């Protein structure tokens, strides 16, 4: 698999990363290098092997349904660039 410049541009847009046209060839080369490296895994025959999702047999831990958190608005809003009263604000987004 190899990425063309259009796909690289699209990935950047989906990730909301602005890139210069002049950076495209370099990024394309880097991304294709990474893909090629990972693609070596295709050489391993995994026919009939259940996908491994973690080491050991750890199961997902769950918690009880009790309220143990929240009510910390100041902390929640502490890094909001432009809070108004109890709210975060963002530049208006209306479709």
């Amino acid at each position, binding site marked *: 698999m190899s990425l063309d410049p259009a796909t690289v541009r699209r990935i950047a847009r989906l990730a909301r990363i602005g890139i210069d046209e002049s950076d495209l060839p370099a990024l394309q080369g880097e991304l294709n290098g990474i893909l090629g490296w990972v693609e070596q895994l295709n050489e391993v025959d995994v026919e009939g092997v259940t996908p491994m999702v973690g080491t050991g047999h750890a199961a997902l831990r*769950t918690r009880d349904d009790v309220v143990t958190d*929240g009510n910390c*608005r100041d902390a929640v809003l502490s890094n909001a660039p432009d809070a*108004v009263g109890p709210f975060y604000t*963002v530049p208006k987004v209306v479709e």
Partner: protein
Amino acid sequence: MSYTLEGKTGTWEIVVGLEVHAQVISHSKLFSGASASYGGEPNTHVSLVDAGFPGMLPVLNHECVAQAIRTGLGLRARINLESRFDRKNYFYADLPTGYQISQFTHPIVGEGTVEIELGDGTVRHIGITRLHMEQDAGKSMHDQDPTRSFIDLNRAGVALMEIVSEPDIRSPEEAGAYLRKLRQILRYLGTCDGNMEEGSMRADVNVSVRKAGEPFRTRCEIKNVNSIRYVMHAIEVEATRQIEVWEDGGEVDQETRLFDPSRNETRSLRSKEDAHDYRYFPDPDLLPLVVEQAWVDELERGLPELPDDKRDRFIKQYGIPRYDASVLVAEQAIADYYEEVAKGRDARLAANWVTGDLFGALNRTGRGIQDSPISAQALGGMLDLMADKTINGKIAKEVFEDMLETGDSAADIVERKGLKQVTDTGAIDAAVADVLARNADKVEEYRGGKDRLFGFFVGQVMKAMAGKANPAIVNEALKKVL
């Protein structure tokens, strides 16, 4: 009779599938310990996990899993003992992490089915494709400021069940019936309050049209419709639009649209072409969710009787018509009320009073069964007075109205107003003789063959006795004399 729409080029049928987002009833959120309750002060039901702070890790709420499994069982669906969580990536201001944790490739619940009943009594089965758990988003407010949107994250991270139907729905009526049935099941199970006005149940509607016998054509998705009535309208409006597009030689584009009820139209969301490119991948913070069959069995044993089962039992146990049974099981509280009234009494009569006079009264006074002005015991008490012939059906209506107004018991009202039914044949015979004497001409006509006058005599006797005579005895007495 199947539902179709007429176009210039002939008859079209519609194909609809629904994705319902149902907010899970739980104390805390799906992956954080913040409160999941509705209506708190802005941004107070928010933990640093919900706000997407770096380094925060999600921990799954056990009860939310139980609620999803209960719902799956209620939909007669397969429970997947192993499921997984994926990240669905998109950018929006009310989604602080930039991804929603959802279940994409391995949902917790697989195929199931929902039985719906239409107005003409037709029964249809709508397939369920899947149910998966996911996080709700926060709320944006666009009307607070000219240049900024305000964000409240109280809802962010609350557990949702997305329930996806097969494209089995063929009319707006079926869509309405499906949503009502789904809501009924969720409420019986206690897994979602089904309150569409508050947004705890919302529907995305997939609509396409086709000529009879064709494969599916391109569909459009109408997002976030928040009432059953609007869903039904939106389907009709969107199907009509698509028929026009096809008939004008155009192509329907697969896109997301919004329904505008005030203008009765759907509008394209003008969304960028990337809207559906969510780049799902397994959430590395969460291991696969493995549940034991024994736990599923335990949850199943704890389920309440479901509406379809209850309806079938009512038909069998109480000998009432299917329609009445369906009406009585619409809400669990109504069914409980009815069973309390019917217990040890004439169950059909009880059904008539509950679905007739009581529902009428509740409608008139704008109340629900929970705050009915007449309790089940009180209504039962009135039926007892009918059963032992203390009052007849006509007087019962009067007693009922009085109970509604005063809240007194039927026995007290009968006592207070002196409404006890007269079964004394002497008094009835006297009234009969009096009525016949005063209407000698009509008696002649009756004897001359005008049978219809019998009802007139009954009415006159009842009137003379202020409605309190036992109708059977009056009939008897009249027949004898005439």
